[in-house]
């Protein structure tokens, strides 16, 4: 059952509504970076990845790691909409006793492959998952979403070296390049350009896409799958807060939840 691009766009819009509802309900969290990667994560869960919500530990399933763990509302929405747990549970996010922690906890949320939240570590974990797939000659692929500010952490570059060294062509990374981090514009805080050149120099196959264009996301993942002998980095240009006019490109919405009024306004825009 393959969804058309317009159906996927509808799903992504639904994911965005869940994000707003979750964060407004929680009163805290990270809307900007959750919205910026919504199209990528939605396309992964509903088109690209092979996974079985009814059999979460299926050995051949594709693995997903959200290295920028603060964007977990996006993943929770996709997991719930896939059937890993009831959609009604989304509103418990960040509350005492909830299975939906503020950052991803693999032992609490059905369907999560790894606990993350501390930036700079997800790519290394993905390398380990990809190595395991190579040892066992399993067909699964490993997908990881990194933040742009996150790659200021040096461990990413250790991981980048090792992924190329071990020729991990079963590893595909998306860099959610929304150009903003907590303290301001990435280029002002600690410049990361030239990005494409860096990943190329580290031995990766690199691609540059519009991270809100679902057709481009699908095509890039297909190209990654066909690329042999090296991992693929997809630099996805995105807009922080994408889909909600008053959040788009606004640094302040990195880690501040919308108020009830702001949420209503946002939901009206997304309806």
């Amino acid at each position, binding site marked *: 059952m393959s969804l058309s691009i317009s159906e996927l766009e509808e799903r992504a819009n639904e994911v965005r509504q869940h994000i707003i509802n979750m964060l407004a309900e929680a009163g805290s969290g990270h809307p900007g970076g959750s919205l910026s990667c919504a199209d990528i994560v939605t396309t992964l869960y509903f088109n690209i990845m092979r996974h079985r919500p009814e059999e979460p530990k299926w050995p051949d399933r594709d*693995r997903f790691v959200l290295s920028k763990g603060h964007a977990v509302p996006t993943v929770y929405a996709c997991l719930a909409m896939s059937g890993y747990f009831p959609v009604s549970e989304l509103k418990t996010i960040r509350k005492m006793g909830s299975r939906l922690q503020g950052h991803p*906890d*693999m*032992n609490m949320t059905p369907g999560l*492959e*790894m*606990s*993350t*939240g*501390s930036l700079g*570590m*997800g*790519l*290394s*974990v*993905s*390398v*380990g*998952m*990809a*190595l*395991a*797939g190579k*040892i*066992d000659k399993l067909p699964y692929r490993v997908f990881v979403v990194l933040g742009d500010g996150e790659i200021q952490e*040096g*461990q990413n570059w*250790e*991981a980048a*070296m*090792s992924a190329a*060294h*071990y020729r991990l062509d079963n590893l595909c990374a998306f860099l959610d390049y929304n150009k903003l981090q907590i303290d301001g514009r990435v280029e002002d805080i600690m410049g990361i350009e030239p990005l494409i050149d860096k990943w190329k120099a580290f031995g990766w196959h690199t691609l540059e896409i519009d991270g809100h264009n679902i057709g481009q996301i699908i095509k890039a993942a297909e190209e990654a799958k066909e690329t042999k002998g090296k991992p693929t980095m997809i630099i996805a240009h995105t807009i922080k807060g994408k889909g909600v006019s008053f959040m788009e490109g606004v640094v302040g919405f990195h880690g501040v939840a919308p108020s009830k009024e702001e949420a209503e306004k946002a939901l009206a825009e997304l309806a």
Partner: protein
Amino acid sequence: MPEMVATRDAYGKALLKLGEINPKVVVLDADVSSSTRTANFAAKFPERFFNMGIAEANMIGAAAGLATCGKIPFASSFAIFASARCFEQIRNCVCWPRLNVKIVPSHAGISVGEDGASHQAVEDISIMRMLPNMTVIVPADGLETEQAILTAAEYDGPMYIRLGRAKFPLVSPPDYKFSIGKSYTIREGSDATCIAAGLMVFEALSAAEKLQEQGINLRVINMSTIKPIDKEAILKAAEETGAIVTAEEHTIIGGLGSAVAEVLVEEKPVPMKRIGMPDRFGLSGPPRKLLEKFNMSDADIARAVLEVMGRKKL
């Protein structure tokens, strides 16, 4: 003189056995495989060995990823890098998700010797012990190391197994059986107890012989599992011998001495003294001379025993 074996050598041999019997075992190293002895495994099972280069943080993350896929990764480097440099990776990627990663560093303690302070990990027990879900093992000799490594592969959860570079005498009896969380009373005694770990167990036994000449019977306990600590044995020793000295090749802040003190203070306070690295960095020198320099030799343990015995309430 008993046989001299470095715990890292016993590790190298144990890994070869594990490689044969357990296909899930994989090994990672950070460019020191010839020193940690993981090179033996690398030569025999190249498809299950990954040299991650001089990048320990990434090694721990990759080990975590392998563990999520059902592998049993053993990750090795020198203790200073495998613990301190990777502390947060171990916290967030191994201990929090309780992944089945075995961190087995070599070159712990001041017995690293001539390489000096930068390479002498004397803080690792302390920082690993504080992590929830972590089990911390400090084998006393080669025999115990081999058993601890084989046991580790059967246990599901994070472990830190601290090994050394120097050759030290075997202290365990041939029929010794290691078990996680169980100490081993290696010598009975009634006047005081020395609770030791690692190569300090040998020093403690040597101190016990010296004291015997003075008519003092020192109990010696090999506390190879630092966490979870064998509370029962500590309380029994406090009850029966009334005075305790701890001995570790590690800073006296936060390690074995602190773990024992935590038990005693809350449940049965008795006179106690910690032998270990004072609050300072090490120096270059031969292991034996360094132990003497930092008051960690058998003679220092014997002196400490006399001191705590003198503080017993009559």
